[in-house]
């Protein structure tokens, strides 16, 4: 089959791009390995200060309806496993899609924290817990502990509690040189206060609650109470680590230890606590294997979450005709992904000769990405602006 544009990934970025291009008259296909359209939208649920509850599955449903209405060919439960030049997209069930333009909107994946016992059933990534809880409506456990303190784990903790599960605490990972950034109480305080500074909103006020507490800010993490501080009634432990998860057939208990001023576990303080589920939040990284397989050039930009395909301000990679949008370009929220998708869809429409005053329309779409970024409610990466500047710089240096 031959298309103007093949979009890989039916998350907010991919669907928005497909809708934009198809509404300008392009023939579009969209492929996703998941049976449900929406990508990471499916599990999202939180209250926004102005517009009320953001219910990701409903946003996903309305995007999917538009995709269908516009006659876009949608291939759910199909994994793209190869891309060949100019351009041929191969799906795992044998289908071949031929196309002039490709959009890679494969989103993000989660980093693991290999705590001893992390493979026991009942231990899962925070994202798995989010999808089970908010999309499938099954509590991942009744007594849940969370390892890893970040914007996502705090959001999901609140969602779990909202649905009736008991979250017994959010803890640091075990101290480890490789994990220092996320296992050291001092660095955690700095991170939380950067979140609070970055978010002029109500969602991350809790981080403010912790870090704007002058006492703690002044005297540093060493004086953060061992018993934790409660956020939405959930204890947040910046001075306790989960050292190990135990259980024969499934997670039954965790071993926790107090963390000293210098970030070391105090072994005499080790305690065992009963749980039936442990969620691990190790942070997100852009999922970009396909871009690499297609020969796109990359840069490592820590502020964006990892290796990202270099791309122009029009979202095109170093491979002519291959575009990117959404979390593959850096870890940010859903609304930014949607704006990026619309931008990419607009640029592709222009390349196809479907727009009259393309340049002006593209400019507007670019401005909408910036606007979405300014208004972002959840910041996954504290220095995202710097990351974006670096991405532009790397691109310019190259050309």
């Amino acid at each position, binding site marked *: 089959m031959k298309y103007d544009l093949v979009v890989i990934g039916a998350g907010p970025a991919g669907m928005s791009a497909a809708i934009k291009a198809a509404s300008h008259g392009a023939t579009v296909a969209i492929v996703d*390995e*998941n*049976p*449900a359209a929406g990508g990471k939208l499916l599990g999202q*649920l939180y209250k926004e200060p102005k517009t009320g*509850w953001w*219910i990701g599955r409903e946003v996903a449903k309305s995007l999917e309806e538009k995709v269908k209405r516009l006659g876009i060919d949608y291939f759910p*439960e199909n*994994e793209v496993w190869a891309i060949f030049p100019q351009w041929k997209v191969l799906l795992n069930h044998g289908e071949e899609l031929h196309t002039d333009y490709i959009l890679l909107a494969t989103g993000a*994946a*989660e980093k693991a924290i290999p705590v001893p016992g992390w*493979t*026991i*059933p*009942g*231990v*899962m*990534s925070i*994202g*798995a*817990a989010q*999808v*089970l*809880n*908010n999309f*499938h*409506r*099954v*509590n*991942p*456990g*009744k007594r849940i502990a969370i390892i890893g303190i970040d914007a996502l784990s705090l959001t999901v903790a609140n969602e779990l509690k*909202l*649905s*009736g599960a008991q979250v017994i605490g959010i803890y640091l990972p075990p101290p480890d040189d490789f994990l220092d950034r996320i296992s050291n109480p001092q660095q955690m305080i700095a991170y939380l206060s950067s979140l609070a500074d970055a978010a002029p909103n109500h969602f991350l006020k809790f981080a403010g609650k912790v870090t704007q507490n002058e006492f703690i800010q002044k005297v540093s993490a060493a004086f953060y109470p061992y018993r934790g501080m409660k956020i939405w009634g959930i204890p947040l432990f910046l001075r306790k680590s989960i050292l190990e998860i135990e259980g024969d*057939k*499934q997670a039954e208990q965790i071993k926790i230890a107090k963390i000293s001023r210098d970030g070391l576990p105090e072994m005499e303080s080790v305690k065992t606590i009963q749980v039936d589920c442990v969620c691990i939040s190790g942070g997100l990284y852009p999922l970009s294997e396909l871009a690499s397989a297609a020969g796109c050039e990359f840069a490592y930009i820590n502020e964006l979450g990892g290796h990202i395909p270099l791309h122009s301000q029009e979202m095109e990679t170093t491979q002519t005709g291959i575009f990117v949008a959404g979390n593959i370009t850096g870890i940010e929220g859903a609304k930014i992904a949607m704006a990026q998708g619309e931008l990419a869809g607009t640029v592709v429409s222009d390349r196809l000769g479907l727009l009259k005053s393309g340049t002006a329309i593209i400019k507007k779409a670019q401005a909408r990405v910036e606007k979405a970024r300014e208004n972002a409610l959840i910041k996954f990466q504290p220095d995202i602006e710097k990351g974006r500047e670096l991405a532009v710089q790397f691109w310019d240096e190259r050309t």
Partner: protein
Amino acid sequence: MRIKKHPILGKLEEKEINITFNGREFAALEGESIAAALLANHIRILSYTEKRQEPRGIYCGIGHCYECRVTVDGERSVRACITTVKDGMRIESQGESPK
């Protein structure tokens, strides 16, 4: 484990269907993943590792880690987290449980 009533998302209204897991019959809801249906029935172990027969269950929930492999209607290594249940589906855990 099912969240029948949710303060924001409302009531669960999906239709009930039947699946079997290792020969036993269980209720599932239309549209959910195999992994979600089994967890709702308190089943966490989806497979056992080949060499050491260690139990494994859902980890990533989005099709990346392959820890949730099950056999579905005779087809091996189907990912339970991204496969939707169907009425009458026969699911089996993969690998051998320790004796």
